[in-house]
């Protein structure tokens, strides 16, 4: 079984100009025993980015749950399906609301960790990091394009060409998923490496939790951490962090 904590914080740059937090996450341990994580970062230029991020993450989790309800499901296929279903759900919502899909722009990061196989998927920026053989590494390099203030979104016409998915090694017992606001604290860009000082630091408190499911009190501490001055002075965007660890 899995234990996890999750939190988000509104960016100080958003507070200053009065825009809401446009990050959303959804986490669930399915009845099949899978740890399911979805994180979406709504685009700053999109008028309903928070709704888009909410729909994308919630729909993806529901799709994963439905997939894993069947017997012998390939986790990679389940993630690919969830990506496609979430994308279509957001496009349908735009059509129903009679707005341009880009008004619902968000990234989408998915992880499904199972007893008999795991997989991950991503479009846009942000990081999914896993611990394997005592070392942390990212699964997909964040999709920033040439410039730091550009990225890809799940609703874009060519998004299917840019959605990345991958199987994760069965030995993966720990994972961290974050939106791009935390990237500069956790990833060393020059060497393109995941910084273990960050990932070990955030996973350590979770390892002390004995029971499976959400460590709710720790999630509150995680939110306080994201809102702490030492994080704030380095990151002014919306911040989301989900951490999960397998319980013996």
């Amino acid at each position, binding site marked *: 079984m899995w234990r996890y904590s999750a939190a988000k914080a509104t*960016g100080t740059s958003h507070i200053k100009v009065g825009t809401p937090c446009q990050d959303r996450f959804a986490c669930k341990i399915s009845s099949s025993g899978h740890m399911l994580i979805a994180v979406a970062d709504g*685009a*700053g*230029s999109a008028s309903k980015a928070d709704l888009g991020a909410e729909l994308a993450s919630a729909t993806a989790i529901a799709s994963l749950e439905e997939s894993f309800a069947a017997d012998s499901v390939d986790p990679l296929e389940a993630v690919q399906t969830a990506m496609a279903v979430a994308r279509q759900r957001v496009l349908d919502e735009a059509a129903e609301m009679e707005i341009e899909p880009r008004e619902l722009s968000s990234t989408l990061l998915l992880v499904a960790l199972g007893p008999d196989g795991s997989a991950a998927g991503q479009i*846009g920026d942000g990081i999914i990091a896993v611990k394997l053989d005592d070392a942390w590494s990212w699964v997909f390099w964040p999709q920033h394009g040439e*410039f730091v203030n550009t990225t890809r979104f799940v609703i874009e016409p060519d998004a299917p060409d840019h959605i990345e998915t991958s199987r994760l090694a069965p030995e993966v017992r720990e994972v961290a998923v974050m939106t791009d606001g935390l990237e500069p604290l*956790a*990833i060393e860009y020059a060497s393109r490496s995941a910084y273990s000082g960050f990932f070990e630091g955030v996973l350590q*408190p979770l390892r002390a939790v004995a029971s499976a499911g959400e460590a709710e009190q720790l999630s509150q501490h995680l939110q306080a*951490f994201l809102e702490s001055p030492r994080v704030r002075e380095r990151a002014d965007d919306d911040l989301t962090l989900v951490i999960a660890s397998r319980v013996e």
Partner: protein
Amino acid sequence: MSGLDQVPFGNVDFVSNPEPRCPCVLLLDTSGSMAGEKIAHLNHGLRTFAEELRSDSMAAKRVELAIVTFGPVAELQPFTTVDAFAAPELNPQGDTPMGAAITRGIEMVNARKAEYRQHGIGYYRPWIFLITDGASTDDVTAATSAVRDGEARKSFAFYAVGVEGADMAKLATIAVPSRPPLKLRGMSFRELFVWLSNSLGGVARSQPGEQVPLTNPTAPEGWATAG
């Protein structure tokens, strides 16, 4: 046991990545026709520019400036961060080799981007900002196609400002239609540079997917008139 150890997430360590950079190269006409009032206002405007950028903490960390003067074409200031930038005192002389200046500016931007990539430094879309009061005295065919090509590939944004006496029709054939040349209102160099500083500051603090709203310089109280 220290206090930090007792707070969950109290001992998380952070990477110190270099700040992402927002490069801007100024292409400044220093031909003979700029002598007198124009160059005095331009020099004053550059000092204002440096002060404004320094007073914006994010811009001060992220904006990088370079200056190319013409003519003749000279790289007066290689790319430097705002804190190391000192406004130069420009002296007008010579003709107006605008085409060569534009080509040099594009080369500098491309070389700078290669350096950023080599060192793992993130960057924003570079700005190339041309200020002139004349008409080019050299062939601008190659420069024009390089501007059009760079704009089409979104590798940089090219802005052209014409000061009193500038050949606006010619400038309009170089700049892209989506970013038409602007005519400076009188000697509003100071207002132009305050706007440029604010705009670069806005870019330097933008997040992925965010469009940076620029103040319209052709508004009644702005520093420019269209065309």
